[in-house]
């Protein structure tokens, strides 16, 4: 099942999990509380590259400084939701 047109933090979290699971190296039991670097064994470069994929899926850009405060998949979803809201407000 794919996540179409995500509107809420939960939708975005589901989209991120779906995209991560497409990578066979990612543990199968991840959820919104999974820590991106520790639980997924991503280094900082892998995180930046993965975020690029999600940016394209949602048509947003995440400034690098925002990534510094992101720990879990849920944190990333909250960040993306806030950028999406800002972008929709300005459109």
């Amino acid at each position, binding site marked *: 099942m794919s996540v179409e047109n995500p509107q809420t933090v939960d939708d975005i979290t589901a989209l991120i999990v779906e995209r991560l699971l497409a990578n066979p190296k990612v543990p199968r039991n991840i959820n919104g509380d999974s820590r991106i670097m520790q639980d997924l064994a991503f*280094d900082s470069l892998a995180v930046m590259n993965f975020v690029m994929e999600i940016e394209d899926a949602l048509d947003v850009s995440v400034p690098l*400084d925002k990534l510094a405060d992101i720990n879990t998949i849920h944190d990333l979803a909250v960040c993306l939701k806030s950028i999406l809201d800002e972008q929709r407000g300005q459109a």
Partner: protein
Amino acid sequence: MSAPKPTPQEPGAKGPGSAPGGVFAKYAHLRDTRSQMLHASPRDPFNVVIEKPLSASEGVIEGRPTLLFGTNNYLGMSQSTPAREKAQAVARSMGVGTTGSRIANGTFSLHAQLEQRLAKLFGRKHAMVFSTGYQANLGTISALVNKDDILFLDADCHASIYDGAKLSGARVIRFRHNDPADLEKRLKRSAHESGARLVVIEGIYSMTGNVAPVKRFAEVCKANGAALMVDEAHSFGVLGENGRGAAELDGCEGEVDFIVGTFSKSLGTVGGYCVTDHDDIDLMRLVSRPYMFTASLPPEIVAATLATIDDVEAKPELRAQLRANAAQLHGGLRAAGLKTGEHPSPVVAVTLDDIPQALAFWNGLLEAGVYVNLSLPPATPDNFPLLRCSVSAAHTPAQIEKAIAAFAQVGKAVGAIKA
């Protein structure tokens, strides 16, 4: 003679700083990784000592003459005779240092002369010289954009560009490596936002040797109202009819707002610069902290750099030789069955499967008398380890053949070349 094996560091606390809460505690993971690497390698790949350069292409390492295929000495200028002589003469007449910043007591007439020379060389109105190439990126980027602006960086940009981005405080958006369409998508996403927009790319990427499609990037920048800065650190002296870099090669120098570069690659000395036609560049001298708060280049280095610029301009045949050497090394490594980039470039990166294989390969090459750079993730694109070679106009065809033969022999021994 074999290298003295370093004492491997055991995981765990080493001194008061390593205790929980100490200043080195946060590096526990790095300590463990380094310790594992030293256990697996007879020598530390990040602490190789060149005891003495014998020429531009050979040096003494572990007491043995060794071919240098891991320097950035693209035109062999680090051993330039005119540059040595000029440096000696200036050291005798002017001393060895300025003791101050360019905006205080650190501007000698030689600095102004070098800036005029660089501006003329690039056909630009202005040039500004920094004490290193690293500072040229830090100083230029942090002066051009700030927290109200947006900076767009190629994903594979050098650490100095990322550090300049941090110092600037600008919002930083990465785009996919060498992909103007991806940049355009990201520029359009931010079209509604205020503030200046600066795009930074490199002419030749230092890890892989990839060459940027500068003209296409310039078109995207122009169409979307962004300024373009190109770091020609590895492409100056190498690409273009006059060696001015990737923008000259692509015939679009007039569409590039800022060119940044270094003296420490094809010019063989140390220092960095920014050239531009923007008349406000002098304001950068008053706001660029990496320019203002560091000692200026010592006079003997400025004199040597002026001499190597003359050398590079006077000897276009060096670039032709460099291209031929790059093609020989690139073609030879590919023919041996190694994975390299598609196109020849003076930087030839061999991609390997994993870190143990890369360590064994690198050690084997050094034991066979060939020094290259070992680059490990996460400093490498796509997280694969690389053996990074850089070729010089000073290498002879026989030296390149010897290096290729060593790669083939060691590559088979470590399983990187399948039989």
